[in-house]
């Protein structure tokens, strides 16, 4: 975290230019599609922000990304590349669904129980790769990817066999009303957020953001998480209990992802459909990278990514341009942003930001 004004300025210029470069590449793709880029970008923007409905759809798409983004951010900050957020999200979602339809309780208990179950399930799912890295030193990248695939098939099995509602559709029974997160449409009797499924889960997401912000800024735990991520040997020397800090960070990361899955189900879908949500975890990874593994940065990136996704869905529908376009553009932004050598000229513009030593090979640490 550069504290100096120059460092922050440099970061914004870097981000702005990266976005600009990605937009340029995107324009080339649109030209190849024989479309006018200005027109298409206007359509993208309008589908994301152009009406009240668009804004609420953007909010709806951004909500899960804030969770998965926070989960990735927390893991990355503690020096763990948790690319298993995708699977942890699924497991949280299916367990939240299960509690949602199988348990009978008053709302004041039911909803928190379903959310808590999602959190715990996600944390448990993250536990295996964590312990494999902690006890055996096995790289979390391979193991978390493996647990993603296992989660995907496990959930498909559950939805298709034991939790299946009827023989005709691969989905679970609907979640009871006592466990749902209210949608804005339901509050305002259609005056608010019509045509979207945005729901009050966004406030849970923002609460997670606030808590993480507080932890990182103000508590010993946050300090330890940051230190472990920055330098493993140094923090051990400094007396931090590495095992506890590392395992704790990873479990909370998985928990936030699982909570996100439960919130998405209880707010938007209200039942688990097979393969309902491919990619929320990976987009969360990208949001954390785009937001420079910073609490506020990642939140902004998740809101941005979510609204762009909403825009891209509008684009797909209106202009027939596949909505993966937006994932391509975000990927490009990250390539450009991460390529520090490309921005060396920025450093020469006398703003005196200390450049941090970057690991270039990933093995020297």
């Amino acid at each position, binding site marked *: 975290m550069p504290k100096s004004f120059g460092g922050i300025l440099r970061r914004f210029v870097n981000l702005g230019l990266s976005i600009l470069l990605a937009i340029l590449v995107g324009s080339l793709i649109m030209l190849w*599609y024989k479309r006018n880029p200005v027109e298409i970008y206007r359509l993208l923007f309008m589908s994301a922000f152009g009406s009240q409905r668009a804004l609420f759809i953007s909010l709806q798409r951004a909500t899960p990304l804030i969770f998965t983004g926070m989960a990735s951010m927390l893991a990355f900050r503690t020096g763990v*590349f948790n*690319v298993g957020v995708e699977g942890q999200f699924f497991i949280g979602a299916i367990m939240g669904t299960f509690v949602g339809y199988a348990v009978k309780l008053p709302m004041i208990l039911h909803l928190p129980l379903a959310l808590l179950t999602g959190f715990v399930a996600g944390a448990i799912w993250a536990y*295996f790769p964590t312990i*494999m890295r902690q006890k*055996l*030193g*096995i*790289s979390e*990248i*391979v*193991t978390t*990817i*493996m*647990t993603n*695939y*296992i989660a995907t*098939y*496990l959930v*498909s*099995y559950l939805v*298709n*066999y034991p939790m299946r509602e009827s023989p005709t559709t691969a989905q679970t029974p609907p979640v009871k009303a006592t466990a749902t997160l209210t949608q804005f449409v339901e509050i305002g009797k259609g005056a608010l957020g019509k045509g979207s499924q945005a729901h009050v889960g966004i406030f849970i997401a923002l609460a997670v953001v606030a808590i993480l912000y507080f932890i990182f800024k103000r508590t010993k735990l946050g300090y330890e998480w940051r230190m472990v991520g920055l330098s493993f040997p140094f923090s051990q020397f400094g007396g931090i209990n590495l095992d506890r800090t590392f395992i704790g960070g990873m479990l909370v990361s998985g928990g936030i992802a699982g909570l996100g899955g439960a919130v998405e189900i209880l707010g938007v879908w209200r039942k688990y459909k097979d393969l309902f949500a491919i990619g929320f975890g*990976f*987009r969360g*990874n*990208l949001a954390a*990278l785009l937001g420079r593994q910073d609490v506020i940065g990642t939140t902004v990136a998740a809101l941005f990514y979510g609204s762009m996704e909403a825009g891209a869905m509008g684009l797909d529908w209106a202009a027939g341009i*596949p909505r*993966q*376009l937006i*994932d*391509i553009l975000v*990927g*490009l932004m*990250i*390539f450009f942003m*991460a*390529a*520090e*050598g*490309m921005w060396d000229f920025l450093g020469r513009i006398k703003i005196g930001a200390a450049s941090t030593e*970057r*690991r*270039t*090979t*990933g*093995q*020297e640490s």
Partner: protein
Amino acid sequence: MDSNTSAQLLSILQRYVFNVANLQGMLRMATPVILAGLCALITSRAGILNIAGEGMILFGAWFAVAGSYLFRNAWLGLLAGILSGLLVGGLFALFSLKLRAHIIIMGIAINTFANAATIFMTRAVFKVAGNIADPRIVGLDPISIPILKDIPILGPLLSGYTFPVYLAWILIVVTTIFLYRTPWGLHLRAVGENPQAAETLGINVPRIRFAAVMASGVFASLAGVYLSLGHLKMYTDQMAAGRGFIGMAVNTFGAGEPIGVFLSSLLFGFVDMIGYRLQADRLLPPYFISMLPYVATLLALTVYTLRRRQAAKAALQAADTDKE
């Protein structure tokens, strides 16, 4: 009773392991894992953690099908796949080595990017979603090896595969020779083991690493070519199915040795093949069968690391008793 059980056991073994069709299946399914393993090997031996293999496989598979469709020629499809591997490998090397992007961040971004880009291109170019299957896609034909094919058992076991299968075997040998019998291989190992020392000796470390990443792109794209043209003759979204990462695991089991990569890939080929058999027999819900390779990877990683730990501990103890 006893003879009955053993007869049953024998028939199960025959059904699932000891018959030529199974062993052929094992060798086929091992091929993309071997190539993905070589992708991980060549970079890890140069001291680079390359996690972008998955994305490179996807691009290789897509461009192979696109090339074959466009030119109506499987070999030009193969060439297109390899070129995509060189291109993606080159870009990956440019960004992470020359422009100093964090290599793991770059890997995560490339994998997600490849996934989105191939889905996008499938829709944009072929106007279909999900998979590209078209009679105009020419697959690679099986090749029979003249004299070998007439030998009983060995013939069917070693002959009649498509080109990438043989190429994978050849590349295992070539990589071994390269690593241990050529000056470049020596340089590559030196760079991987001690880059500072290698630099002092006048070895151009960045250039060696750049070349290693490019080579890894070629290996990974060949795995993709095999999946889309050598095995299936179609492209399916996300058809790499984690093989890039399984390749990294295989490289770990193989201790970074080509022959080790080959042998541990056979294990994964075996798991895949058993999966097909179980699926045909409807013994398990298909979802559990699809899980097998990933569960096997986790189990194998755990067992392998535990055993290596024990071996290290035993060696230490032996050294201690020697002292006394």
